[in-house]
């Protein structure tokens, strides 16, 4: 059985490397171009530091998009998480409707949302933020509602036995228990948002991605290299900070 699986995987891989229907594996072309690639790599190793002042504004815009996207997404996600979890919303079909919609929302990558939204509302940070919000709601509601589903049913039953309505039970009993999971997942999507917002500009949705698109059109790989370094620093800093906070919380 493992060998059959391995054979199938190898066969599929070989088919996908064939010319015509494959990924276009053209070793001759790579051999021809690889020197060009080497030149690019050398350029990448020498970032153009003088480009730094021009990157500050777009970088700030990227962070703004990530912060706003996370904040709005979190505000929408909290009530929806209660809607999507069984202990806090006993009406089965409404849960199923919301979960179905969210499954579809999650299946579309955020850059695709951004590309379509740019055409709808125009170039700028706004389509990027809306794309991030959609992406966040999809993830946070799934993760938080799963935590609520898995939580201890005892306190909720106690609330029901004491005669509380569903709303009161959710407010007084489920909500305090959900905070740590909610905050932890929100920080997690904030990390994802920072990463995602750096490339949203490639489709015109604002932030440093606009600059990535510009320097790549002019083949300025030394400037691209500076942008990559900046993204690395920001992502690593934010991940470290967010990790530290999450460890304290959970």
């Amino acid at each position, binding site marked *: 059985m493992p060998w059959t699986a391995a054979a199938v995987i190898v066969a599929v891989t070989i088919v996908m*490397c064939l010319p015509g*229907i494959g990924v*276009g594996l053209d070793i001759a072309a790579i051999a021809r171009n690889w020197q060009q*690639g080497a030149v*690019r790599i050398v350029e*990448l190793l020498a970032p153009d530091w003088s480009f730094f002042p021009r990157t500050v504004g777009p970088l700030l815009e990227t962070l703004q*998009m990530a912060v706003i996207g996370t904040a709005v997404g979190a505000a929408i996600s909290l009530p929806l998480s209660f809607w999507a979890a069984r202990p806090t919303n006993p009406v089965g079909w409404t849960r199923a409707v919301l979960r179905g919609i969210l499954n579809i929302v999650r299946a579309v990558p955020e850059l695709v949302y951004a590309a379509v939204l740019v055409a709808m509302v125009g170039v*700028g940070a706004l389509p990027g933020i809306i794309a991030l919000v959609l992406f966040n709601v999809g993830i946070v509601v799934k993760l938080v509602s799963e935590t609520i589903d898995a939580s201890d049913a005892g306190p909720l039953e106690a609330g029901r036995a004491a005669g509380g309505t569903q709303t009161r039970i959710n407010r007084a009993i489920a909500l305090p228990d959900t905070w740590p999971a909610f905050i932890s997942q929100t920080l997690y999507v904030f990390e994802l948002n920072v990463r995602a917002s750096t490339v949203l500009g490639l489709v015109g949705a604002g932030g440093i991605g606009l600059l990535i698109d510009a320097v790549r059109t002019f083949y300025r790989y030394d400037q691209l290299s500076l942008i990559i370094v900046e993204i690395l620093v920001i992502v690593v800093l934010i991940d470290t900070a967010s990790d530290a906070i999450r460890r304290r919380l959970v």
Partner: protein
Amino acid sequence: MTVLAPARPAALVVPARRRNPLRTTAAVVVSVIVVAAFWSADIGWSRLGDLPAEIVRYLGLMFAAPNWSKLPEALWQTWRSVEMAWIGTVLGILIATPLSLVAARGFGPAPVRVVLRFVFSLVRAVPELVFAIIILSVTGLTPLTGALALAVGGVGTLGKWGYEAVENVSPGPIEAARAAGGSTAQVLRWGVWPQTAPTFLSFWLYRFEINVRASAVLGLIGVGGIGDMLTSYTQYREWSTVGMLLIVVVVITVAIDAVSGRIRRRIMEGPRVR
């Protein structure tokens, strides 16, 4: 006869909420950052007002009558996206698995381990699109570029998951293999692999799912696949075709996730006992 005064309920003493200065500070800092972001961002909020109506209008344009005549081309481009994801996953596995073994505590020398872990985290911090932009200077605008970018990105995640999995194995079988005189390769094969195989397989499948999503996005820079087609038709503002393409993306992603998720559960939990 004494009138029984209704017993007053014992005064409800609500204990004062314990103050947590750290939490208060965190809340204040976060609020300041969020307010500052809203306040400083240069966003045409005015456009937000008619957005709901606009979205409804565009949803109508996209999904009222999706343009199914372009479906064959869409399926062909989807195939190319899936190819990118598959080749990217296979290459990622081939590169990441040995590296993750070297990066695991107890198998690689400490300096190599530190360097490798650092490389994994750097790779994870860079979006795949950026790798694709670098790689396309060698391989051009072909799906191969996308596959290679996904492979590089995969090394970051698969490498990290891999060494974590190897470090979490129970030491018994490893010690047994060592005590029986096994070389490092034999210890890996008989002490580590039997314990970690299900975890590794499920990581690989999970990475494939991630790559399927990512490959749709890589098309945006022109390396082909469904994303490429989607951006083109968005730029032409041919909304009925865009709607059809979105349906294809959703159906394919959901289907692949469902199949792969089922296989993963089967691997991790074993066959269902009847």
